[in-house]
């Protein structure tokens, strides 16, 4: 089996994970915290970086998540727990998937296209899920430079149009806005859960936990810079600007002469996002495979089942994205901290030594 190298893991944390936070989240935060939108994002990043630190510490035990659970609770309980965790990961896929569909329909087509244009994504998703999770390491090697290219390109084209003074005065949204913003951002922060499923697929190196958390925060700095630029451009109207990273660069003066060259960068980020959006679902399938063995046909069966279900759900919720978001990041926001923050911390309390198998 191919192992994920520490470099690939850092690439994921610093370059791939931030892309998922550039689409709908800036709008959501502008809606909740207005000009203080940086603070909920910063808080979420710090908490998540802490969780990632814990997960990477767990890598020292050289066991995957299922083995960690089995080591403490025994086989049956571990199977139940990991199945619940897999269900959470499938649930976490929902918002990125739906926001991506809306993004594709709105940004890549002049007129509202038929539903069929997004259907190939499910074929792509099924193919990705059928591959082992560890194969993503090599994908990240290719996607990381693409992500940096796309992100920097958009930032360079956008930053000239931004008025950063719009972020002042600090604290205008109050503590309530900060809390509301942090709460509404929870469902975009599932990276620690992804890292949990990667346990056993990479080797722990010296200082990896610190480095991992720092790389994640470095990605966070990029997101915060983008967020500041986004709010600096749109200011009070930011809460109406959906699909943030496709909006900010359109005011670049060269666009009239060169055409929408910013689309080059948008395409790069869209490619990265195509992989990132399906990652939780793939991680969920990997959890099930850890628990229930790996016959050759099982990954294909799981990938078809999961993508089929996601396809039906996304068809059903076609024009209900705002309602879905209201439930997931409003009423049910507490689900995410349980699995992405508390679970990694609790996992540190699991039994350290391997149990002797009878």
């Amino acid at each position, binding site marked *: 089996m191919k192992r994920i190298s520490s470099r690939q893991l850092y690439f994921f944390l610093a370059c791939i994970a931030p892309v998922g936070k550039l689409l709908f989240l800036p709008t959501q935060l502008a809606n909740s915290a207005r000009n203080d939108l940086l603070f909920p994002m910063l808080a979420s990043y710090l908490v998540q970086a802490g969780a990632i630190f814990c997960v990477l510490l767990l890598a020292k035990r050289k066991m995957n998540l299922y083995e960690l659970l089995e080591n403490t609770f025994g086989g049956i309980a571990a199977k139940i727990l990991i199945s619940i965790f897999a269900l959470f990961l499938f649930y976490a896929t929902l918002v990125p998937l739906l926001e991506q569909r809306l993004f594709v329909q709105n940004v*890549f087509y002049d007129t509202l296209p038929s539903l069929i244009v997004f259907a190939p994504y499910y074929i792509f998703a099924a193919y990705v899920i059928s591959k082992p999770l560890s194969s993503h390491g090599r994908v990240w090697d290719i996607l990381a430079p693409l992500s940096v290219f796309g992100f920097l390109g958009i930032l360079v084209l956008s930053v000239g149009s931004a008025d950063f003074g719009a972020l002042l005065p600090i604290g205008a949204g109050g503590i309530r806005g900060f809390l509301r913003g942090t709460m509404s951002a929870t469902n975009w922060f599932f990276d620690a859960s992804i890292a949990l499923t990667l346990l056993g697929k990479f080797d722990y190196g010296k200082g990896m936990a610190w480095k991992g958390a720092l790389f994640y925060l470095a990605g966070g700095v990029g997101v915060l810079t983008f967020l500041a630029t986004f709010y600096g451009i749109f200011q009070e109207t930011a809460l109406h600007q959906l699909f943030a990273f496709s909006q900010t660069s359109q005011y670049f003066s060269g666009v009239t002469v060169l055409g929408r060259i910013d689309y080059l960068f948008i395409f790069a980020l869209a*490619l990265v996002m195509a992989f990132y959006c399906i990652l939780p679902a793939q991680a969920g399938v990997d959890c099930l495979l850890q628990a229930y063995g790996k016959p050759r046909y099982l990954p294909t069966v799981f990938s078809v089942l999961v993508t089929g279900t996601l396809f039906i759900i996304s068809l059903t919720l076609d024009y209900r994205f705002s309602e879905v978001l209201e439930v997931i990041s409003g009423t049910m926001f507490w689900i995410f901290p349980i699995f992405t923050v508390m679970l990694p911390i609790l996992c540190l309390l699991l039994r350290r030594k391997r149990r002797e198998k009878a």
Partner: protein
Amino acid sequence: MKNITGELIKTKDALKKLLPSEDILTFDFISEKGMQFCVVFADPITDKELLGEQVVRALLDYDGKPTAAEVGAKLTSPEMKTETALDILALEILSGNPVLLFAGMDAAIIVGTKKVFTRAIAEPSTDVAVKGPREGFIEDVKTNTSLVRRRFKTGELKIEFLEVGRRSKTAVALCYLEGTSTEQVVKEVRKKINDIDIDIIPDSSYLTHFLSSRPYSLVKQVGTTEKPDIFCAKLAEGRVGLIVDGSPIALTVPYLLVEDFQSSEDYFVPTYRATFTRVLRLFALLVAIYLPAFYVAAQLFKLQLFPVKLLLTISGAIRDLPFTPSLEMLLVLLVLEILNEASIRMPKYVGMALSVVGALVLGETAVSAGFVSTPAIIIIAFSGIGLYAVPNLIEQTSVVRLAMLLVAGSVGTYGIILATGFMILYLVTTDNFGAPLVAPFSPVVGRDLRDSIVKYNLGSLQKRPKSLKSPNKRRLK
């Protein structure tokens, strides 16, 4: 397996029975002292002049004992061996090596007077270099191995001759540098070659199917070259090479995709120039694959992608076209592919006429008749030229280009992005003989990046590519 007997007539008859073909001849002669000899040979592939000179003339005054050792000592051929099994003798005759029989013999003598029909060593038309060696492989395996041997004056160069094909018994030379190539790869290649059970191997391309880890894949998994200098450079990097009798194209494994962006000339020109041309090749390939697709997708789904002035020009050009943009592009692409295919196959003197027909009649007239637009022809021309910037990948990229065009015409730019995603995942998960196909980009191998799309100077390339896992790491001290 039957063996020869001391009786000349019986052995000759047995061989004739095994080889009843009319081109298998026998030549009987008696020495001055009365000893009977017979040579059995395949007429078209035996050098009869050499046979007469080295065998018949040498034995005319033979008066020794009828033993293979003594008779052999009298022959003047540098290549000979003794054999008793009739099957092996028959095989040697079919390979062009005559068999000498004599009365009272203990073993027959096989004489190496094979007639080899070869063309002269010339520069391969598919891999022309302005600077650097101009030699190219030809169809004869012996000549080809000699071109390799000439470049390695060391015992570390091992050339093993294997035989493939139940009927063709084609010679395959397995070449590697002992201590530099990975032993595991040598073993795996040898095993894969020995396991092939096919009747004939007309060309080295047949072997690629058996060497590939994904035989039905669109992606190339075995390196090819027609030039001995490239072949030797690849061996020196730690690869294993295969030269097949009857084919001027040699194979190398493990294959890395980046190989096809490198040309031998890159190593004979300044590094900045080599880097520039490699970047240009990559850019040309991307243009070849993506330009027609994005043009169609932009026209159909996202006109914003064009700058305003260009949009006005395009809209003027496509206004009265009877076809949709994707159909128009598909037609032009199809015409290009047909012209390309026809120009390769047809006699050279018709080629000029074809160029006129292609460029003027089909191009100019189709535009003025309103069947296709000028931008479409320009786009396809760009794409067609770009494809030939990386000639070793033409078969693959032309199919990918077509697929991208179809996806762009039906789903638009997002389809192109997803198709790219498919391609990336497929490529990065393909390994060949333990080497990742997309190395040194995925997984990133820092050291190997120095000779990838970027080319460092020779002094910086002190070690062999890490992706090939050569046990002998240092090449420059």
